[in-house]
């Protein structure tokens, strides 16, 4: 990616935090134990919170602090804790079955990062430098989150995938200078996630994300294959 002017401290820190989130996404992809995944995600949430806080300082937009605290509280502590509970309650397999192995997933992830940089790279003529870097990272985090959702068979890890996707969104939103409604929307997202967790917990949706037993699935499709 384009070398940034070293002078700007603001850029360096933002760059550091955003990059940290990206790295953590890779770690998430790499993990194959549920508990570890949850811990790593908590870490990423914390990184997000820090980066948002830093943005609020840089853009001197105090309301972003709310977002930061919400992110830290909800995604840093409450939800990981809740998920730990669920894992214990519903004894979800501790081992995460992967659809494609770790190596290929990593390669795919790298490809996605390259793609996102490729996409954002030419944008920068008029966009501020911070915006561009953040955007590249945010896009990469979003795509990696999606990748995680589709390469893991385990409900909990899929929730985590979605949440890291959403981390990317919040990163981008806060990166956009003076964007209205960011706080509200980030809060709304947290509620959304709460709903998902709630759903998993209440409806006992374990592997209904993805079951190997197809016949069981068809019973949930209203039309069975024998009708065909």
């Amino acid at each position, binding site marked *: 990616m384009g070398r940034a002017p070293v002078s700007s401290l603001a850029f360096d820190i933002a760059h550091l935090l955003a990059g940290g989130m990206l790295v953590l996404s890779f770690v998430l992809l790499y993990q194959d134990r549920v508990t570890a995944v949850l811990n790593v995600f908590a870490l990423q949430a914390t990184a997000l919170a820090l980066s948002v806080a830093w943005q609020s300082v840089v853009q001197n937009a105090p309301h972003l602090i709310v977002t930061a605290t919400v992110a830290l509280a909800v995604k840093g502590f409450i939800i990981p804790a809740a998920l730990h509970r669920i894992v214990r309650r519903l004894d979800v397999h501790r081992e995460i079955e992967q659809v494609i192995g770790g190596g290929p997933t990593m390669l795919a992830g790298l490809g996605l990062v390259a793609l996102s940089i490729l996409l954002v790279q030419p944008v920068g003529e008029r966009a501020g430098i911070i915006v561009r870097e953040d955007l590249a990272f*945010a*896009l990469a985090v979003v795509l990696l989150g999606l990748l995680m959702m589709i390469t893991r068979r385990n409900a909990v890890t899929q929730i985590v995938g979605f949440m890291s*996707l959403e981390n990317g*969104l919040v990163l981008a939103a806060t990166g956009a200078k003076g964007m209205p*409604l960011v706080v509200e929307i980030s809060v709304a997202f947290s509620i959304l996630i709460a709903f*998902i967790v709630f759903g998993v917990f209440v409806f006992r949706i374990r592997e209904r994300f993805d079951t190997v037993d197809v016949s069981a699935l068809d019973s949930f499709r209203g039309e069975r294959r024998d009708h065909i």
Partner: protein
Amino acid sequence: MIAPVDLLLVIPAVAIPVLALVTSYRLGAALNVLACALTCAAGVALLFGERVRSELLIVDDFNIFFIVLTTFVGFTTSIFSATYIAHELEIGRITPVFLRFYHAMFQAMLGAMNVALLANNIGLMWVGVEVATLSTVMMVGIYRTPEAIEAAWKYFILGSVGIGLAFFGTILIYLTAQEVLGEGLSAMAWDLLAQNAGRFDPRLMSLAFVFLLVGYGTKMGLAPFHAWLPDAHAEGPTPISAVLSGLLLNVALYALLRFKMVLAANPSTLNVGAIMMALGLISLIFAAFMLYRRRDIKRLFAYSSIEHMGIATFAFGIGGPLANFAGLLHMTMHSLTKSAIFFAVGHIAQVKGTQRIADMGGLSVTHPVLATGLALGVLAIAGLPPFGIFASEFMLVSSTFARQPVLALLLIVGLLVAFGALILRLQEIVFGPPKGPKDPVKASYLPLFIHLALVLVAGLWLPGEVVRWFRAVATLLG
């Protein structure tokens, strides 16, 4: 005196808590109808008041028509839902508690759609669409059968991902805009965006549109992002299926079109028309073939909704005044017709006690009026005259063939395949030796036949005002 624009938002907002608290079923249903009627009246009043434009809300040629349509279909659906839900309550498929929840959610959804349509702010519109989605998720799962929960869950997850992607696109649009329009609300206002799009960064806009297309495309049920749609239609209560097909898909497409307008105002952006045409054709042909294997009547018409959304998307993709006009007409006609079909289907499924097409043959013998309604609806949706969809498809196919012969051929292949499937099922349901129970149906035919009458009239004659709006929007869409 409070302006109709605000009424459109206030009435549902008031109705939600009230309906959530009212315990009596009859009262709740009546209030629901009343609220919808008031909203509809406010929408109609909009036609006569002067156009409004504020930081957050706007009324222009484009959305005024969709607001009237949405509130109207909401109104008719509420009438239908009253009789429908009564029957569901009798056979105990849902409990009074859930019924209160249902009515509240109904209003929430309609209100959210009004927000999305009225919004002059891409963020606000996004919020509207998402709230509408989430409230429908709730209602899809309301029967709490494993199938229903499965459908709702699928809808929820795919919808959430769509939400996220659409939001990312919104952020990108804001980023491009704020470089020109400065920070704050003005960089998210429709009219300003459309006016100044020429000075935005085309690359970022194109990138944004891709995310918006996937995000809102998921809401519209464009293949391959359609997965939630058939099951959500099939497993939820039929009024919800009617509103989903009739309104929510339209609102999502409306959002997409707003963004297309912005892009159309900047010539140096990526040619998104091609992408939309591709997605439209894929949806059309895919859905057309999927129609053949359907055994569940509601799922059948859900796939037909995918098909028609594909047609509309294709129309806007190819662009030009004629095709855009056809697309707008098609959206309108489809929402009226499809909701009418779901009204009929709801009653049919109730009297026959099943949604399996195989178990509901010979309807014209057992329930002639319902059969007539369904037949007219299906013939209309299949694109037969003298109904409105014939007019829109007439314009679309002929003008496309004059410009892009090959695409027109693909288009008619899709249309023909879908036609074959629909007529096959129609004959299976309406004709042949009668099957299933013959007991009379307690139905309100009013909404069904009002919609059909409107579609019929629109197929032969459109008011000059509507034509003027459509022309104006068609030119804006480029």
